[in-house]
Structure formats: structure tokens, C-alpha cells
């Protein structure tokens, strides 16, 4: 016999309460601005179901633990009932849908077991009750508020007008269970149309040629495939797992590629053949050596579609997933840095410009930042590098890139699986999370929206992943594991499939710990539930692993063992539900040659800027989200945890000026530095995808050098994000991009070590399918010896010379161009001869202490870079003259291109630097001085085209994103 209680926590004893920020934001979004005296409260609600014998413990638990602070009190009611509200207060109750992960409830159960409850017989669900007083409300408005406080994909809610008692759906109602056992799919006799229908209906994303190859395989075996076999093949052959477009054959004009990536990006790495590249393109992350003993891994992933649906959960599981890539590199690397790069539609996008069914970019941005913040911060990993880009082309499909850097010893880089090793699942329980739209066995259940939606999005639990991390580092350091990988897309099917690629495995799916009963074997096999890893363990070492996991409070289960016969056997309660030949699984996919259309140069469309003077143009650029200060985001991330940072994303006199990257001391002894940066030249993609790739590599490396890195030991990651790759024109852009990336990497001698592609980023608007703008994100990581040498981008003193380093920029591809309706033209060319020479020389100047400050020229060109350098100077101004740079004023001020920096140089060093530049052939022009007056002056000959207080410009630059995260 169980009893149900509702514990509501009222924070009414806080002498200085602040209004609930989510509620206030939601009110503003429905067009209501609350006044000072209005009540905006939120009450945490805990529904407890306890055995009768524990009933007398509930009140003490509620007061001492659930309230537990003199600032609040707990009100306990039997049943599902909340304390009455004051007269006139409206309320909204938001709670998780059944079957959706509720991490807080697990912590409450932990505390209950400490207090002597029979925790195995206790259940907890949580909710939040929002109360609104002093504001006129009505039912549609409350529903509007509720839909902003909760997300229909994971939450359910009820709203209540003044005087109405809260009645909510039973929080403990069961999640319906369904079919079990083996399901056969008739394929052998299927016609071509039927094959396509089976793929489409099952959400398998296999094309006709692939379905035919599968049918042929089963004809040879003389039987029909089972559902779980077909799902496994579909997962293994998916774009996500085997990157069939980029590793496929492509005819591109006169060029033919058998495997595009192999022959471009990988080929560059092979050609460079650097001994410090320890693991490239074969593991969950690339690994490079710091010295002989230590190395760092680096991987960047995307999580776009989940973030578009549920930004908080999607971004959180994005960062959670890439951290697991680090944990699953070799036998485990320790995560020491997170990176994040986002692309959204502009935050001021009008509601009528949103495709139906999509969330407003402002809401997406807030949700994504909150997701990265809460997951990254709880993992204790600094998030210290990244970028945020805005472009209308992301209105239906935002991009969310999450990166992770790990630290590991060389001896832990290699892993292997031996037949007879145990397959051990470690970490979170398996639920229906992330199971794609419709598997065969659950097809009929898709009618049920609860079933459907709770599966579509994964909910993360960073606490679980942190426990897994702590346990794994101990297991690794005791050398208890032979191989490790993470459960990402495809869940166990991908993880076990990859590890058993050579050996085969036998898996008992009923042994996986489940979140709730009723999962069929296929669901267990392909579930994308978070925070799970798979280990390959020598049987004699299992006992010690279990001891460590017990102390760290991490669950594990032995699912089966690896075999020596090349068969992947899947059992459920001893029934064989699937048996696959791993050779066919990993080698049976038919390859097809695709034909691409090489892009043509685009005619120049002039930007409409004639009505704007240079000062207005600068102010527009500084206020634009692409340039505006990211401080409101950066501050929400713990970018200092672990105590390794030596260059932070913000520095300067007021610690709010943007640096070009970040640096950390990996071994905490000053012996080495790890420098991380990124490059993404958004406007360039539509103009010239080859140049975009070169420019992105160049930008990442310029940022890296400006942050204290060196070309001597620098490596790159590629992240492609593209639209509909079935379109030959888009495929042509990808080919050009790959060629450009490879050429630039070779020119700089910096190998790509890992990468990831996210294709099919399309959305429907106005009845047509649209693709996002082409994006190549390049991330750079560099190792240097000794203490960090870095000037920083902030001006240091008045009276220095300001030196423009590098060639001219151009308007085509620049932010100014596309922001003002322009496009096309010929961008400033990447110069593979000049680039490396220039970066090596800049590095030498940095090491010799000859640059007082240094900033790369990127979005917004010279004018924006000059302003940003002044923002960190604590009141120092600039007096520059660009007359010598040519007649086209806007091109000199706002043009963009590779190989460009602005540097502050002491007068006594100018001669030396000028001589160096001449000796190696680097363009270098003195364009003015730093001055005592806090003013930015840029002259074009006699015309003072820009003259503005640094403080005023800084305010313009700061307030755009501050408006998205108001602090009061």
C-alpha cells in the first residue's frame, strides 16, 4: 500500500526575493511588462509516493531536506494537492510528461534512502507551480505563458485563474508498454515500390539501392530479416554513422573522387605525416601529442535538429554527447575544455518571418545557451571558446556545434577488443529517448502523441555523466578496460557494432537496466538514452570495476561478450531476435557515384550602403549580433573551472574585451600550453565555397596565433553543415569546400585530425524546402612549450604605432556586404605562400615581446577590429588614417579577407618589425597611433570618416546581446 503526498516549497521567508526570471521573460514575451509590486513566484513541487511504513518520515524530509533553508518552508498535503493561493493569484503548473527523464527525482530518492525510507518502493516526480499576482490574466494569456514556461515535447501543464484549485494529470501514471520479441519483415518477395515503402514507413532512411542490397543478402541467407536486424543495418549505414555522402564517389566536372574526404582532407593529413599526430580520423576524437607522455584529444559535434525542437535539452545533450566522445577516445581522455559555436537567425526576426512550427531565434538562443551552461558547468569543464553567428538563412534550422578537448597519456590512446571480453554497459538507464519516429513495433503507437514526442528528444542528466566521468578516470588509471566507446546516435547498436566490427558479439538485451518497464528489444538496442558508455572488459577485471562503480554510484550491467566468429547475435530473454554478419554490416553497403555541379562565380550585387556614412556603418556592424559582445553568454559559462586557464575569452583593462581564442596549462606546471580557436566565415560560403574553406582555416589559425599558439604543432577539425546534399549544386559546394580545406591545411602544414558532417539541414517555409547557408567550421588546437606568450587584443598604452599586417581585404563575402543586401563578387584570395610565412613571423614577434597587442581582422574588417582593441584599453583611443590603403574607403574600413591583423607596436620596435616584414615579404603599413583621448578617430585623407567616443561605441557593441539576457 502506497501513499501519495505533495510537498510544495514556498520561498516566502526570503527577505530580498527576486521575481522568477523565467516567468518574467514569458510575461514580456506575451506583451505584458510586470511592475515592481507584482508577484512573480515559482514554487518547486515534489510528488512523493511512499510505502505506508514511511508515511511518518515525510514531514521531516519535507522541512529538513526539501525546504532545508530558513528562506523557505514546505507545505505537505496528502494526495496531489497544493497549498491554496492568495486571492486573485493565477497559477500555472508545469510538469514532465510520463516517461520523460526527471533527474531531480533521482536525487530526492537518494536523500530519502539516507533518511531511512525504503527507497526501492518510493517514487518521486517533480513540478513547478508559477504564481502570478497583481497582473490581469485570462485563459488564453495563461496558456500562452504556459507554453513558454514549458516545452510541449517534454512537459505538460495546466493553468488556473484566480480562485481555481490546481488539478493536474496524475504525475505517476504509467508509461504504456508494448510489443516484445522477434518481429520479421517480409523483404525477399518485396517489389521495388515495397522496398522503398518499408524504408520510408520504418524511418530507416535507406535508398532503393541499399534496400536491394539488403534483400539480396537475405535471399542468399534464405530467410527474412528481423526488425532489429534491419534497424541495425539502417543505423550502421546512416549518414550519421558512416558519412556516405562525403566518403562516397563523386563526379565533379572533370574531377572524379572515389572517396571525397579520403582524397582531400585525409590525404592532406597523410601527406603531412606528422609524428605528433597520435590518432587521426579513427577514434571518437583526434589525438595529438603535448610531449612524449601526454596528449590532447579534440572533437566537435553538431546537435542541430534536437536543438531546434527543444533548445535546452538539445544543446545540453549536444555538449553531453561530445564530452562522451572524449571519454570514449582511446580508453578515456579527461575533458578539460568545451567549445561552442552557434548559428541562429537574427534575434530581431519578425514573428511573421518564422516558418510555422519553429521557435523564435531569441527563444532558441536563450534555450541553447542555458542548455550548454547547465550541462557544461555541472560537468566541471570550462566552456571558454566559441562563436555566435546570425544569418536569416538559419531561421528554420539553427546550428549548434559543441566541442570537447581531453587530456590523456599516450599509453591510453590505443584500444582493442579480444574475443571473450565482456560487453559492459555503464552509466544511465535505457529508456525510449531519442528513438526515431517509428520503428515497426511501435508504429501503431505513433498515434499516441505522448509516446511519439517523448521519444523525439533526449533529456540529459549531467550529474549522471559526471559520475561516469569520475569512475572512468579511475578505471582508466588502473588499466582495467581494454576498449571503451560512447553510446551516441544509434545507442548500443552503434557502440557495440563499432567495437565488435572485427569480432562479433553476443548481446542479451534484457540485461540492460531500464528506466521503466515495457521496452522491446529493438528499442533497447537503438535507444539514444544519454550518459551511457560501453566497455570491453577482460573477465578477471570485472570485480574491481564494479567496486569503483559502486563507490561512485554508477550502475553497470554485463550485456554479453565479444565473439570470434564475426556474428552479431542479439537475444532477448534467451530468444534470438537477430543475427547479423559483421562483414555485411560494415562492408555490404553498395556505393554509388554521385554527380555534382561545380559552382560558378556569382555576379557582384552591390550592398545598399550609399545612404550611410562610415560612422553609421560601423555602428550597425558593432550592434549586429555577429560582432556584438558575447559577454552575456560567456559569463554564464564557467570558463575558469579546473584552474588551468591562462588566456580567457574576455580580458583587457575591464576584463570585457574579446580575445581571439583561449589558452590553458594542461599539466598545471607551466611546461606547456594548449591554445584553442575557431574560424567560420559565414558570408563567404555563398560567394565562393573554395575560398570559404581556405578563409575559415586561415581565420582559425590567425586566431590561434593571436592567442599564443604556433604553427609548429597545430591541428584542425572540420565540421561541415550543409543543406540538401541531394541537390547537385549543393554537393558541388561541398566538393569545392573540401578541396579548399585540404589545400589550406597543406599550405599551413596543419593536419585535420577529426571532423564531422551534418547534412540535410533543410526546413520548409512557404511550402518550399530551403537549405541553410553553406558552413564549414574549422577549429584549431595548438601546443606550445613553456609559459604562455600572448599580447592579447586589448590596447596597452597610448603612444604606440598601429600596424596593419597583411594584404587588402575585399567587400565580397564580408559581413557589411550581406548585411546590406549585397552578394557575390570575387572575395580576397587566400594566398598559400604568404599565409604560413606571415603567421610564422607574427609568432616570432609575439615570442620576442614586440607586439603590445594584436587582433585578427574578421567580421567587420579593420574598423571593427580597431574598435574592439580600444574596448580593452581602459580609456586609450586610436587615431588612424587609412588614406594610404586606397581610394575605396568602405573596402579599407570594412572589407574582409585572409592573412590580416592589426597590431600595437612600441615606437622603439617599429624599425625592427618593418625590417623583418620586408625581409620575408609581408605587407605591413603603419596606419596611426594609440592616443590618450578615449576616442576612435579614423581618417581617410582629410575626411575624418569616423570619430566617436570609445565608451559610446562600446555601449552599442555591448547592448545587443545584453537585451536578450537582461539582469534586472
Amino acid at each position, binding site marked *: 500500500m502506497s501513499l501519495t503526498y505533495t510537498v510544495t516549497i514556498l520561498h516566502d521567508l526570503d527577505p530580498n526575493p527576486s521575481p522568477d526570471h523565467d516567468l518574467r521573460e514569458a510575461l514580456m514575451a506575451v506583451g505584458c511588462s510586470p511592475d515592481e509590486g507584482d508577484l512573480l513566484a515559482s514554487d518547486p513541487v515534489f510528488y512523493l509516493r511512499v510505502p505506508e511504513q514511511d508515511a511518518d518520515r515525510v514531514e521531516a524530509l519535507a522541512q529538513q531536506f526539501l525546504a532545508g533553508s530558513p528562506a523557505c518552508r514546505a507545505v505537505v498535503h496528502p494526495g496531489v494537492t497544493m497549498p491554496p493561493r492568495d486571492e486573485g493569484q493565477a497559477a500555472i503548473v508545469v510538469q514532465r510528461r510520463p516517461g520523460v527523464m526527471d533527474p531531480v527525482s533521482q536525487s530526492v530518492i537518494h536523500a530519502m534512502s539516507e533518511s531511512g525510507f525504503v527507497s526501492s518502493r518510493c517514487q518521486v516526480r517533480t513540478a513547478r507551480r508559477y504564481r502570478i499576482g497583481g497582473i490581469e490574466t485570462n485563459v488564453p494569456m495563461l496558456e500562452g505563458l504556459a507554453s513558454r514556461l514549458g516545452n510541449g515535447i517534454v512537459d505538460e501543464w495546466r493553468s488556473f485563474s484566480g480562485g481555481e484549485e490546481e488539478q493536474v494529470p496524475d504525475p505517476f501514471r504509467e508509461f504504456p508498454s508494448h510489443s516484445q520479441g522477434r518481429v520479421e519483415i517480409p523483404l525477399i518477395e518485396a517489389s521495388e515500390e515495397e522496398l522503398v515503402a518499408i524504408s520510408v514507413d520504418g524511418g530507416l532512411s535507406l535508398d532503393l539501392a541499399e534496400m536491394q542490397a539488403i534483400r539480396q543478402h537475405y535471399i542468399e541467407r534464405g530467410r527474412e530479416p528481423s526488425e532489429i536486424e534491419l534497424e541495425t543495418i539502417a543505423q550502421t549505414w546512416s549518414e550519421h554513422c558512416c558519412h556516405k555522402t562525403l566518403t562516397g564517389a563523386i563526379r565533379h566536372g572533370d574531377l572524379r573522387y572515389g572517396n571525397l574526404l579520403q582524397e582531400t582532407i585525409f590525404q592532406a593529413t597523410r601527406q603531412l605525416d606528422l609524428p605528433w599526430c597520435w590518432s587521426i580520423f579513427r577514434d571518437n576524437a583526434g589525438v595529438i601529442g603535448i610531449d612524449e607522455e601526454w596528449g590532447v584529444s579534440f572533437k566537435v559535434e553538431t546537435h542541430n535538429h534536437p536543438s531546434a525542437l527543444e533548445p535546452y535539452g538539445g544543446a545540453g545533450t549536444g555538449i553531453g554527447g561530445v564530452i562522451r566522445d572524449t571519454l570514449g577516445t582511446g580508453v578515456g581522455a579527461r575533458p578539460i575544455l568545451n567549445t561552442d559555436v552557434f548559428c541562429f537567425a537574427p534575434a530581431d526576426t519578425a514573428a511573421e518571418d518564422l516558418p510555422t512550427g519553429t521557435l523564435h531565434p531569441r527563444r532558441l538562443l536563450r534555450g541553447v545557451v542555458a542548455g550548454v551552461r547547465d550541462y557544461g558547468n*555541472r560537468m566541471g569543464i570550462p566552456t571558454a571558446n566559441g562563436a555566435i553567428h546570425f544569418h536569416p538563412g538559419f531561421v528554420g534550422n539553427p546550428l549548434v556545434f559543441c566541442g570537447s578537448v581531453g587530456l590523456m597519456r599516450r599509453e591510453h590512446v590505443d584500444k582493442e577488443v579480444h574475443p571473450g571480453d565482456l560487453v559492459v554497459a555503464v552509466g544511465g538507464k535505457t529508456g525510449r529517448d531519442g528513438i526515431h519516429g517509428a520503428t515497426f513495433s511501435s508504429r501503431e503507437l505513433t498515434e499516441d502523441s505522448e509516446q511519439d514526442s517523448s521519444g523525439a528528444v533526449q533529456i540529459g542528466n549531467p550529474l549522471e555523466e559526471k559520475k561516469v566521468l569520475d569512475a572512468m578516470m579511475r578505471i582508466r588509471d588502473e588499466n582495467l578496460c581494454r576498449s571503451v566507446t560512447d553510446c551516441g546516435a544509434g545507442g548500443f547498436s552503434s557502440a557495440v557494432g563499432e567495437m565488435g566490427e572485427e569480432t562479433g558479439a553476443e548481446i542479451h538485451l534484457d540485461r540492460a537496466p531500464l528506466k521503466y518497464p515495457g521496452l522491446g528489444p529493438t528499442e533497447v538496442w537503438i535507444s539514444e538514452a544519454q550518459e551511457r558508455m560501453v566497455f570491453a572488459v577482460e573477465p578477471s577485471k570485472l570485480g574491481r570495476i564494479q567496486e569503483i562503480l559502486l563507490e561512485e554510484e554508477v550502475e553497470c550491467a554485463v550485456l554479453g561478450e565479444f565473439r570470434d566468429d564475426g556474428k552479431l547475435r542479439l537475444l532477448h530473454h534467451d530468444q534470438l531476435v537477430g543475427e547479423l554478419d559483421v562483414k555485411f554490416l560494415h562492408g555490404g553497403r553498395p556505393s554509388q557515384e554521385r554527380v555534382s555541379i561545380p559552382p560558378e562565380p556569382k555576379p557582384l550585387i552591390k550592398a545598399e550602403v550609399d545612404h550611410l556614412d562610415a560612422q553609421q556603418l560601423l555602428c550597425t556592424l558593432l550592434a549586429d549580433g555577429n560582432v556584438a559582445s558575447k559577454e552575456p553568454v560567456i559569463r554564464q559559462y564557467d570558463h575558469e573551472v579546473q584552474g588551468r586557464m591562462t588566456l580567457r575569452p574576455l580580458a583587457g*583593462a575591464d576584463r570585457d574585451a574579446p580575445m581571439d581564442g583561449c589558452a590553458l596549462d594542461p599539466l598545471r606546471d607551466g611546461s606547456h600550453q594548449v591554445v584553442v580557436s575557431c574560424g567560420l566565415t559565414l558570408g563567404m560560403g555563398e560567394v565562393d565555397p573554395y575560398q570559404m574553406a581556405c578563409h575559415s582555416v586561415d581565420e582559425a589559425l590567425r586566431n590561434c596565433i593571436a592567442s599564443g599558439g604556433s604553427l609548429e604543432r597545430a591541428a584542425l577539425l572540420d565540421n561541415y553543415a550543409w543543406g540538401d546534399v541531394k541537390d547537385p549544386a549543393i554537393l558541388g559546394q561541398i566538393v569545392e569546400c573540401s578541396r579548399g580545406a585540404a589545400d589550406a591545411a597543406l599550405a599551413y602544414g596543419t593536419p585535420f585530425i577529426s571532423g564531422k558532417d551534418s547534412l540535410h539541414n533543410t526546413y520548409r517555409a512557404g511550402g518550399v524546402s530551403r537549405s541553410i547557408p553553406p558552413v564549414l567550421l574549422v577549429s584549431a588546437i595548438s601546443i606550445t612549450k613553456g609559459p604562455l606568450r600572448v599580447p592579447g587584443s586589448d590596447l596597452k598604452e597610448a603612444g604606440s604605432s598601429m600596424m596593419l599586417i597583411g594584404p587588402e581585404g575585399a567587400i565580397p563575402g564580408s559581413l557589411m556586404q550581406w548585411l546590406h543586401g549585397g552578394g557575390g563578387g570575387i572575395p580576397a584570395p587566400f594566398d598559400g605562400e604568404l599565409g604560413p610565412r606571415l603567421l610564422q613571423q607574427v609568432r616570432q614577434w609575439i615570442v620576442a615581446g614586440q607586439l603590445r597587442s594584436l587582433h585578427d581582422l574578421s567580421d567587420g574588417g579593420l574598423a571593427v577590429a580597431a574598435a574592439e582593441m580600444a574596448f580593452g584599453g581602459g580609456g586609450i583611443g586610436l587615431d588612424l588614417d587609412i588614406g594610404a590603403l586606397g581610394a575605396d574607403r568602405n573596402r579599407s574600413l570594412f572589407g574582409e579577407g585572409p592573412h590580416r591583423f592589426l597590431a600595437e607596436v612600441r615606437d622603439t620596435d617599429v624599425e625592427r618589425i618593418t625590417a623583418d616584414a620586408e625581409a620575408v615579404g609581408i605587407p605591413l603599413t603603419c596606419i596611426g597611433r594609440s592616443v590618450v583621448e578615449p576616442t576612435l578617430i579614423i581618417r581617410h585623407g582629410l575626411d575624418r570618416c569616423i570619430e566617436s567616443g570609445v565608451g559610446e561605441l562600446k555601449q552599442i557593441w555591448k547592448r545587443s546581446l545584453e537585451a536578450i539576457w537582461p539582469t534586472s
Partner: protein
Amino acid sequence: MADLMSKGTPRALVLRAAGTNCDRETVHALELAGAVVESIHVNALSRDPSILEGVGLVAFPGGFTFGDDVASGAVLAHIIEQRLRPQLQRFVDRGGLVIGICNGFQVLVRLGLLPGGEGRGALLWNQSGRFEDRWVYLTSGSEESPWFAPGQRYFMPVAHSEGRFEWFPDQPGQEFPTEQVAFSYCNEDQSAASYPDDPNGSHRSIAGMISADGKVLGMMPHPERFVRPEHHPSWMRIRPDGAIPLEEQLPVPLGLSIFRRAVDHLKTHQGDLVGEGGTR
């Protein structure tokens, strides 16, 4: 008492639990300060609480123990209350030093170890309503302690969302123990600060509290994140040649100085610790 020292070196314990995440840098800071440090999981300490008898200093590091579910530090405080309260009290009573940083401070306040005495404190949501990571200036409290010199200026990062200290007297009109303020937020010139230099809107701009006897310190800022000069967020501006400054060239003491002072205190006061001594 020889057991509290390893060849004259003070022993320290860094206590971690699920979700702790500043344990390793806290170990590092205490080691740099000259202690012999062991990091231990609360489950391991629960199995053998006598380990506490062999150490002179216990650190509760930062993090999000148990995800800060329910409230910051709530679950860990509950576990300690249920399993280790008497042993921890004995450790404090015999003069052991305790530091709680960020989440550790939240745990000590939740347990009532700070401020201690009459009345209670709470660490509540920042007035800004969000997590913030920024460097802040601090002025240390008015009383001598094993942890800091009075009235000194410090500079350290904070990184938290629940750091607003509020005071709840047992009786109305009860006086606030100002001598127990360990650190308060201030401007660079040590004048009174407002947001964002006071990042959370605490009562009296409190950043840290200390027990009446000076042995138990809790603070929201992170001294363990400033143990080398290049941890200073704008170290590039300090020397004209742009190189990393020496410790004595910094305008403020390292956060490390707090750990050093405590470890030095244990070295010089080793005879003052009362109790049985450990078996380890």
C-alpha cells in the same frame, strides 16, 4: 599528534561526492601550499570516518554536488547530516581547519556550521537570476584568522548562481555577527560595490563567512583558481614586456595565499590541536 603531520607536513583531506568538480584544483592548491593531500569520496569516508582523525584540514570543494538538485549543496549536506555529523563536529571541536568553497560553502551553511551560533544563514539565488563567472575584488574581514590577514584586498573569480547570502536571526532584533564576515565584495579601491562588482546582491555584500573561532571558512569566490600569476585574467597588462609577471609583481596576492596561511598555521600550531590523534 604526529599523525596529523607527515614528517612535519600538515595533512589535508579534499572531500568529494557525485557532482563535485573543483576537487582536483583544490588538491593542487593545497599541495602548492605545502600540505600532503588526499582526495576522498564521501562514500569512502562514510565507511571509515576515523580518517578525519588523521588530518588537520578538510576542504569542501566547489561543484554541483548531486546536480544542486532541490537546492545547492542540499543532498550532500543531507548525507553528511545523516552519516558524518558527529565526526565532523569532533573534528571542528578539536581545532581542525575547514574550508568550503562555492558549493562547499553552500554545504557548510546548509549544515548550519556557518555562521554557527545564534541565527542561520542561507545562500540564495543571485539577484541577477543567473549563473555568472567573473573576477571580483574582496576585502577580508576584521578579525585575525588562520586563513587571511584582516582588511586586505583580494581578487578572485566567482562562478555561481546561488551565492546571495542572507541572514535569519533566531530572535527579531538580534545583532548580526559582523566579526564573522570573512570576505565582502568591493570595488578595486575597496569602496562599496554594486552589481556587477557585487555579483549576487548579498546581505552586506558578503562573499564569505567564518566561524567565531576562525577555524571554519566558507566563501563563494574560488581561491584555488588563482594559484599562479598567469591565472590573473589580464596578466598581459602587468609587465611592460608582456611576459608573465612574478608573484610579487601582482597588484593583489594570489588566491594561493589563503591556503598557504592555513597550512602554515597548522605547521606552527600543531600542538594546539586537541584529540586522540589518528590511527593512520
